[in-house]
């Protein structure tokens, strides 16, 4: 496995675990305790080093071999140049709004501030008076920011800014290295990363300090791990897929829905596949489900113990006429179309659709079926929710939220199409 892929997966995994340790402080001590959090990290780190001591010895850190790096020449350096340029672009965009976009100060960073400064009153984030901050949203991003603030010892705005750049960068890096890993070539990864990072809209949204980039990262990470597990017949990656889905479920309400849909599709795919009955083994489903269960525990606990009901929900069945239902349906369908073809996406969705049509046989084959199945089911669920919930005026609501939903799916969609297109030339990749 490529060290770079491992690096980008472990950074997301690490941030997720850190957020969960911070959550444990609120769960067990009913407040933020810095000592508990730091000690928790050290204990976990020591435990992981103890468990993994055998694998460290066997490890081949080939990328750190500078002789190899020199002999590989410019080809090996290009992805890192792309990544460095991405970092610079993202940093410049993040600097435009150091305190983030609207949802950063009205929702995500506000929650983080309550968690960090609230002491025993941290549960005030769930107060109905704060309905503008969506108190029912899960807490992964605020907890990651709190983790940073523990080290800064203050609610420094630089921490959420760094976290947004970091999540954006590891999303681009994971796309780059993930495609290199599964196709055995640099080209698709470089094309995908450049396509993402040259989109002004991607840069703006990625660095707005919203949870959408966190959703985008975990969707991509879960799907990539599933593909790696499938191709390499490696059950550990199914466990990792489950973990990433668990983190995804704690990132945002949309993330919870996405995680549920992905979990259902992956479980069914594993259960009906011949590979599971053969080389991968039936217990691979257990690996997947155990990872999912462990990382979903904070979501389950949050939903059961803390999350208030969604105050911005009114069902369409509560006294609206049939005509309104039909109007909303038409508005949603037309808006989906208008959004996908909007100039702000730089033609990316049209190109991806063309790519899907051109590689239709390959893009629906074997493990890749989870991609279209997920996009279709998630799209339908989102459309149904837009139709069902009449709390907001539909056109306004679509205009402020649909682009973010598409944004969170974009890296995974790019991965799917580029992977399908370049799959033939992946002799090297298959061995990985």
């Amino acid at each position, binding site marked *: 496995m490529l060290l770079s892929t491992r690096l980008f997966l472990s950074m997301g995994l690490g941030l997720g675990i850190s957020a969960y340790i911070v959550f444990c402080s609120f769960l067990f001590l009913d407040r933020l305790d810095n000592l508990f959090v730091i000690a928790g990290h050290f204990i976990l780190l020591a435990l992981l080093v103890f468990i993994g001591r055998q694998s460290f010895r066997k490890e081949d850190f080939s990328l750190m071999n500078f002789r190899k790096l020199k002999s590989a020449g410019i080809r090996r350096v290009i992805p890192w140049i792309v990544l460095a340029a991405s970092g610079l672009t993202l940093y410049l965009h993040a600097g435009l709004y150091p305190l983030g976009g609207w949802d950063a100060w009205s929702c995500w960073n506000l929650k983080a501030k309550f968690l960090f400064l609230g002491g025993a009153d941290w549960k005030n984030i769930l107060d109905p008076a704060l309905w*503008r901050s969506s108190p029912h949203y899960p807490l992964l991003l605020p907890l990651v920011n709190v983790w940073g603030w523990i080290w800064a010892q203050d609610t420094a705005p630089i921490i959420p800014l760094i976290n947004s750049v970091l999540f954006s960068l590891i999303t681009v890096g994971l796309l780059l290295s993930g495609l290199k890993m599964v196709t055995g070539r640099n080209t698709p990864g470089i094309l995908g990363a450049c396509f993402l990072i040259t989109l002004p809209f991607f840069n703006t949204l990625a660095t707005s300090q919203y949870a959408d980039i966190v959703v985008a990262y975990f969707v991509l990470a879960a799907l990539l791990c599933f593909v790696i597990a499938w191709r390499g017949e490696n059950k550990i990656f199914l466990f990792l897929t489950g973990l990433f889905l668990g983190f995804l479920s704690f990132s945002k309400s949309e993330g919870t829905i996405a995680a549920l849909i992905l979990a259902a599709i992956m479980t069914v795919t594993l259960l009906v596949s011949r590979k599971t009955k053969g080389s991968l083994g039936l217990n691979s489903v257990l690996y997947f489900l155990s990872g999912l269960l462990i990382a979903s525990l904070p979501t389950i606990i949050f939903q059961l113990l803390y999350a208030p009901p969604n105050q911005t929900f009114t069902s369409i069945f509560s006294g609206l006429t049939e005509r309104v239902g039909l109007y909303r349906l038409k508005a949603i369908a037309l808006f989906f179309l208008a959004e996908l073809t909007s100039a702000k996406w730089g033609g990316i969705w049209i190109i991806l659709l063309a790519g899907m049509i051109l590689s239709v046989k390959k893009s629906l084959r074997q493990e890749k079926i989870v991609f279209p199945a997920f996009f279709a089911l998630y799209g339908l669920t989102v459309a149904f929710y837009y139709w069902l919930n009449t709390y907001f005026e539909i056109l306004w609501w679509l205009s402020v939220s649909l682009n973010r939903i598409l944004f969170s799916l974009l890296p995974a969609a790019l991965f799917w199409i580029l992977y399908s297109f370049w799959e033939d030339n992946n002799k090297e990749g298959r061995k990985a």
Partner: protein
Amino acid sequence: MMKLLKVFPRYIGLKSVFSAIIIIAIIINAIELFKKTPKNIAQRNNLPFYFLGMKFAGLDKILGGVTRIGYYTDRDLSKNSEAAQFSQAQYILAPAILDPYNLNHAFTLFDCSSQEKCQEKIRASNAIPLKKNQFGVILAGKKP
């Protein structure tokens, strides 16, 4: 024409065509990005305020451990710019919860379109002004 279409993929593979389309899109997007970014940076540097919520900075020091304060404004909070200012005030003053239009709390913030309107409302709500910052935001306390 048909002959050309049959021969075409032999020389230029589908992958090359798809790559070329993506590269063209990347170049167009990159030009847009290079045009927009310096312009946006210059625009941001010329703005007097990064953040409207800064109007409320410093008031949190007086509040101490108060968890809930009233917030009064004569502006329409359903408007985008006013709602943004309210949310930014909430962010700056967190972990205290701002309770809009509720004047029954021990402390209330008065953020009005004019000082006269603020003073009038403070008198009417039987409160005493405690601190006024340079932006005209007044923190008032309930009379004992």
